[in-house]
């Protein structure tokens, strides 16, 4: 059996090193090895988007990335979105627009939404819906999430 691999990476702006088995996904490494449990496991096959993180500037489903692939990468998880105890405007908008109920999908939606607004500060509703099509929510019916992202876009442009 292969042993564990030593991985050095950057998570939320901080150097992190960890040991993992080559078969472990980045999602498992984040949650079970590093202890960053904000990233959620939903389907574990890339369909639901609950485990979305940003890796080298592009959102990915961390269940479909091996932990060993994190070597030398820059990763942003939901824990890296707020500024200390000050919520990011997207997080604030999700609360104000009641864009979550059970909350399992929320970290993935927020990481994906931030990535959209970083690249496209004033997206159309159509662009928001297509960008977030890889994130599933079984509670809200999506409309409140879309309104929250639109609201956040306005707040961020005013800021």
């Amino acid at each position, binding site marked *: 059996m292969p042993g564990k691999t030593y991985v050095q990476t950057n998570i939320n702006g901080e150097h992190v090193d960890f040991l993992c088995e*080559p078969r472990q996904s980045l999602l498992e490494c984040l949650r079970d090895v590093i202890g960053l449990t904000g990233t959620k496991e939903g389907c574990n096959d*890339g369909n639901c988007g609950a485990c979305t993180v940003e*890796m080298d500037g592009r959102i990915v489903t961390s269940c*479909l*990335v*091996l932990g060993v692939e994190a070597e030398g990468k820059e990763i942003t998880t939901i824990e890296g979105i707020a500024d200390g105890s000050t919520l990011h405007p997207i997080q604030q908008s999700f609360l104000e627009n009641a864009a979550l109920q059970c909350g399992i999908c929320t970290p993935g939606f927020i990481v994906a939404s931030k990535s959209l607004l970083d690249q496209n500060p004033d997206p159309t509703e159509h662009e928001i819906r297509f960008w*977030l*099509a890889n994130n599933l929510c079984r509670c809200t019916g999506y409309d409140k999430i879309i309104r929250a992202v639109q609201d956040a876009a306005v707040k961020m442009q005013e800021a």
Partner: protein
Amino acid sequence: MKWIDYATPHSVREAVDVLSEAGGRARVMAGGTDLLVALRAGVYDIDLVVDGKNIPELNEITYDPTNGLTLGAAVPCYKIYGNQAVATAYPGLIDAASLIGGTQIQGRASLGGNLCNATPSADSIPPMIALNGTANIAGPNGNRQVAIEDFCTGVRQNALGSDEILVSLHLPAPVANSGANYIRFIPRNEMDIAVAGAGVSVVLDNGDIKEARVSLASVAPTPLFVQEAGDAIAGKPANDETVRIASGIARDAARPITDMRGTIEFRQHLCEVLTRRALNTAIERAKENN
């Protein structure tokens, strides 16, 4: 997932050596969006994942109006449609690259991986067949080229030997008055597996079809190249009647099964409709591309 080991070769030569040593107990990973799901499901009995993303040739994306497109096997979809020169030259390829999965999947999934995964429903294979693509394969005895239509040999089976690696895909440069399109039918607006799909290309000459290629997804054990559909309309005027002839041949060439996504009859009907619509779009694009 069962125990696996992981290798990150930094050259094609090194990858071929690692694969040779593994004696068929390894698979190459590009984006991993199919492979990791398949490994969790126990589809492949392997001991080693060979990550291709650190090999320079697998990350190449080079377009030249004379020599065409060289697309490294691990280049993710978003880098393909994000490349303005490539997007302008190959809208028929972009049709597929921009509808595989959602944003997250497109951040990792590659057309090389889509090809090697070799499912009948792979969205990028019909347009690559229609665009006359070839696969550039490296092995212990050097490189060889395989036409995309000959690459898939069965459901999840491909032409690669166990010691070979897909390095890149090549598409010839688009000629004047040419156009291509890929469309599929899915029951929702996006993020689904094709019930059927059609990838086509045409070259026009003074209002006639000079050349056409038609390929279908999800209606046979492999992506299907329907050569006779294109051949039958070469030299005919680019009009509704000609498009109907090719669409009918595509419908008759389909060999679908009935499953949870659609019946044989429905899929045959889809082949006709999708081929007709894709040809009409390809002809429109060809008229704009002069």
